[in-house]
Protein backbone atom coordinates (compact mmCIF):
# COMPACT_ATOMS: atom_id res chain seq x y z
CA UNK A 1 0.00 0.00 0.00
CA UNK A 2 2.29 2.71 -1.26
CA UNK A 3 -0.43 5.30 -1.52
CA UNK A 4 -1.26 5.17 2.20
CA UNK A 5 2.40 5.68 3.06
CA UNK A 6 2.72 8.59 0.69
CA UNK A 7 -0.44 10.34 1.86
CA UNK A 8 0.57 9.88 5.49
CA UNK A 9 4.06 11.19 4.77
CA UNK A 10 2.66 14.17 2.91
CA UNK A 11 0.24 15.11 5.66
CA UNK A 12 2.79 14.80 8.44
CA UNK A 13 5.32 16.82 6.47
CA UNK A 14 2.67 19.47 5.88
CA UNK A 15 2.08 19.89 9.59
CA UNK A 16 5.79 19.78 10.37
CA UNK A 17 6.46 22.57 7.90
CA UNK A 18 3.61 24.58 9.40
CA UNK A 19 5.30 24.36 12.80
CA UNK A 20 8.79 24.99 11.43
CA UNK A 21 7.79 27.92 9.27
CA UNK A 22 7.15 30.20 12.24
CA UNK A 23 10.57 29.56 13.72
CA UNK A 24 12.83 28.82 10.79
CA UNK A 25 11.40 29.26 7.29
CA UNK A 26 14.50 27.90 5.54
CA UNK A 27 14.36 24.62 7.43
CA UNK A 28 10.68 24.25 6.61
CA UNK A 29 11.54 24.62 2.94
CA UNK A 30 14.28 22.01 3.14
CA UNK A 31 11.92 19.58 4.88
CA UNK A 32 9.31 19.95 2.17
CA UNK A 33 12.00 19.60 -0.50
CA UNK A 34 13.23 16.34 0.99
CA UNK A 35 9.68 15.05 1.30
CA UNK A 36 9.24 15.73 -2.40
CA UNK A 37 12.46 13.87 -3.15
CA UNK A 38 11.27 10.89 -1.12
CA UNK A 39 7.92 10.73 -2.85
CA UNK A 40 9.60 10.85 -6.25
CA UNK A 41 12.04 8.14 -5.17
CA UNK A 42 9.13 5.95 -4.14
CA UNK A 43 7.45 6.56 -7.46
CA UNK A 44 10.45 6.00 -9.65
CA UNK A 45 10.01 2.23 -9.73
CA UNK A 46 6.52 2.65 -11.17
CA UNK A 47 7.85 5.14 -13.70
CA UNK A 48 10.49 2.58 -14.64
CA UNK A 49 7.77 0.00 -15.31
CA UNK A 50 5.93 2.39 -17.62
CA UNK A 51 9.17 3.21 -19.42
CA UNK A 52 9.96 -0.49 -19.91
CA UNK A 53 6.51 -0.97 -21.42
CA UNK A 54 7.03 1.97 -23.77
CA UNK A 55 10.41 0.62 -24.85
CA UNK A 56 9.01 -2.84 -25.49
CA UNK A 57 6.16 -1.41 -27.53
CA UNK A 58 8.57 0.66 -29.57
CA UNK A 59 10.74 -2.37 -30.23
CA UNK A 60 7.79 -4.46 -31.39
CA UNK A 61 6.69 -1.63 -33.66
CA UNK A 62 10.25 -1.41 -35.10
CA UNK A 63 10.49 2.28 -34.33
CA UNK A 64 13.76 4.07 -34.72
CA UNK A 65 15.63 3.80 -31.43
CA UNK A 66 16.78 7.42 -31.51
CA UNK A 67 13.26 8.81 -31.45
CA UNK A 68 12.19 6.68 -28.49
CA UNK A 69 15.30 7.69 -26.55
CA UNK A 70 14.59 11.34 -27.31
CA UNK A 71 11.01 11.05 -26.11
CA UNK A 72 12.09 9.38 -22.88
CA UNK A 73 14.68 12.09 -22.30
CA UNK A 74 12.04 14.75 -22.89
CA UNK A 75 9.74 13.17 -20.33
CA UNK A 76 12.60 13.07 -17.80
CA UNK A 77 13.47 16.72 -18.41
CA UNK A 78 9.83 17.67 -17.93
CA UNK A 79 9.68 15.85 -14.59
CA UNK A 80 12.92 17.34 -13.27
CA UNK A 81 12.22 20.92 -14.33
CA UNK A 82 8.70 20.75 -12.91
CA UNK A 83 10.13 19.49 -9.62
CA UNK A 84 12.68 22.29 -9.40
CA UNK A 85 10.20 24.94 -10.40
CA UNK A 86 7.75 23.86 -7.73
CA UNK A 87 10.46 23.97 -5.06
CA UNK A 88 11.39 27.48 -6.14
CA UNK A 89 7.74 28.50 -6.14
CA UNK A 90 7.33 27.15 -2.62
CA UNK A 91 10.18 29.37 -1.50
CA UNK A 92 8.35 32.38 -2.92
CA UNK A 93 10.76 32.80 -5.82
CA UNK A 94 8.26 32.54 -8.62
CA UNK A 95 10.54 34.37 -11.05
CA UNK A 96 13.22 31.73 -10.53
CA UNK A 97 10.57 29.06 -11.03
CA UNK A 98 9.61 30.70 -14.30
CA UNK A 99 13.22 30.69 -15.44
CA UNK A 100 13.65 27.00 -14.59
CA UNK A 101 10.51 26.19 -16.54
CA UNK A 102 11.70 28.29 -19.45
CA UNK A 103 15.02 26.45 -19.52
CA UNK A 104 13.20 23.11 -19.43
CA UNK A 105 10.96 24.10 -22.33
CA UNK A 106 13.87 25.36 -24.39
CA UNK A 107 15.92 22.22 -23.84
CA UNK A 108 12.92 20.08 -24.75
CA UNK A 109 12.47 22.10 -27.94
CA UNK A 110 16.14 21.67 -28.86
CA UNK A 111 15.97 17.93 -28.25
CA UNK A 112 12.89 17.67 -30.43
CA UNK A 113 14.65 19.22 -33.43
CA UNK A 114 15.64 15.88 -35.05
CA UNK A 115 12.08 14.59 -34.74
CA UNK A 116 10.68 17.80 -36.20
CA UNK A 117 13.04 17.71 -39.16
CA UNK A 118 12.19 14.06 -39.76
CA UNK A 119 8.49 14.90 -39.82
CA UNK A 120 9.01 17.79 -42.21
CA UNK A 121 11.15 15.63 -44.52
CA UNK A 122 8.52 12.89 -44.56
CA UNK A 123 5.80 15.37 -45.42
CA UNK A 124 7.93 16.88 -48.18
CA UNK A 125 8.51 13.43 -49.65
CA UNK A 126 4.81 12.66 -49.56
CA UNK A 127 3.86 15.84 -51.34
CA UNK A 128 3.76 15.76 -55.14
CA UNK A 129 6.33 17.91 -56.83
CA UNK A 130 4.62 21.22 -57.42
CA UNK A 131 5.45 23.03 -60.61
CA UNK A 132 8.12 20.56 -61.54
CA UNK A 133 6.18 19.35 -64.57
Amino acid sequence: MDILQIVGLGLSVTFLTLILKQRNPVFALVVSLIAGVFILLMMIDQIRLVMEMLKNMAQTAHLNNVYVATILKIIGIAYISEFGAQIAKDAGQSSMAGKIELAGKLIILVMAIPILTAIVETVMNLMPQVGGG
Partner: protein
Amino acid sequence: MSLDVNTIFQIAGIGIIVAMIQTVLKQMGKDDWAQWVTLIGFIVILYMAATLIDDLFERIKQVFLYM
Protein backbone atom coordinates in the same frame (compact mmCIF):
# COMPACT_ATOMS: atom_id res chain seq x y z
CA MET B 1 20.27 3.62 -1.62
CA SER B 2 18.91 4.72 1.70
CA LEU B 3 15.18 5.14 1.34
CA ASP B 4 14.57 6.10 4.91
CA VAL B 5 11.78 8.42 5.94
CA ASN B 6 13.52 9.07 9.26
CA THR B 7 15.70 11.65 7.52
CA ILE B 8 12.73 14.00 7.17
CA PHE B 9 11.92 13.84 10.86
CA GLN B 10 15.60 14.16 11.69
CA ILE B 11 15.78 17.37 9.73
CA ALA B 12 12.62 18.74 11.28
CA GLY B 13 14.04 17.91 14.72
CA ILE B 14 17.30 19.67 13.91
CA GLY B 15 15.29 22.69 12.80
CA ILE B 16 13.26 22.86 16.01
CA ILE B 17 16.32 22.35 18.23
CA VAL B 18 18.29 25.00 16.36
CA ALA B 19 15.39 27.41 16.78
CA MET B 20 15.33 26.71 20.53
CA ILE B 21 19.09 27.22 20.86
CA GLN B 22 18.75 30.42 18.92
CA THR B 23 16.10 31.77 21.28
CA VAL B 24 18.12 30.86 24.35
CA LEU B 25 21.29 32.43 22.98
CA LYS B 26 19.46 35.58 21.98
CA GLN B 27 18.00 35.93 25.47
CA MET B 28 21.50 35.54 26.87
CA GLY B 29 22.50 38.42 24.67
CA LYS B 30 24.81 36.48 22.36
CA ASP B 31 23.35 37.32 18.99
CA ASP B 32 26.46 36.48 16.98
CA TRP B 33 26.58 32.95 18.43
CA ALA B 34 22.92 32.51 17.52
CA GLN B 35 23.75 33.41 13.95
CA TRP B 36 26.56 30.84 13.83
CA VAL B 37 24.35 28.09 15.23
CA THR B 38 21.72 28.74 12.57
CA LEU B 39 24.32 28.79 9.84
CA ILE B 40 25.90 25.51 10.88
CA GLY B 41 22.55 23.77 11.31
CA PHE B 42 21.60 24.97 7.87
CA ILE B 43 24.83 23.65 6.35
CA VAL B 44 24.31 20.22 7.91
CA ILE B 45 20.74 20.07 6.62
CA LEU B 46 21.79 21.28 3.19
CA TYR B 47 24.39 18.52 3.02
CA MET B 48 21.76 15.88 3.79
CA ALA B 49 19.40 17.37 1.23
CA ALA B 50 22.13 17.47 -1.40
CA THR B 51 22.94 13.80 -0.85
CA LEU B 52 19.30 12.85 -1.29
CA ILE B 53 18.83 15.00 -4.38
CA ASP B 54 21.94 13.47 -5.92
CA ASP B 55 20.44 10.04 -5.28
CA LEU B 56 17.18 11.05 -6.94
CA PHE B 57 18.92 12.49 -9.99
CA GLU B 58 21.01 9.36 -10.41
CA ARG B 59 17.86 7.24 -10.35
CA ILE B 60 16.13 9.52 -12.84
CA LYS B 61 19.15 9.28 -15.12
CA GLN B 62 19.05 5.49 -14.89
CA VAL B 63 15.37 5.37 -15.77
CA PHE B 64 15.11 8.00 -18.47
CA LEU B 65 18.49 7.99 -20.15
CA TYR B 66 18.96 4.25 -20.21
CA MET B 67 18.85 3.22 -23.84
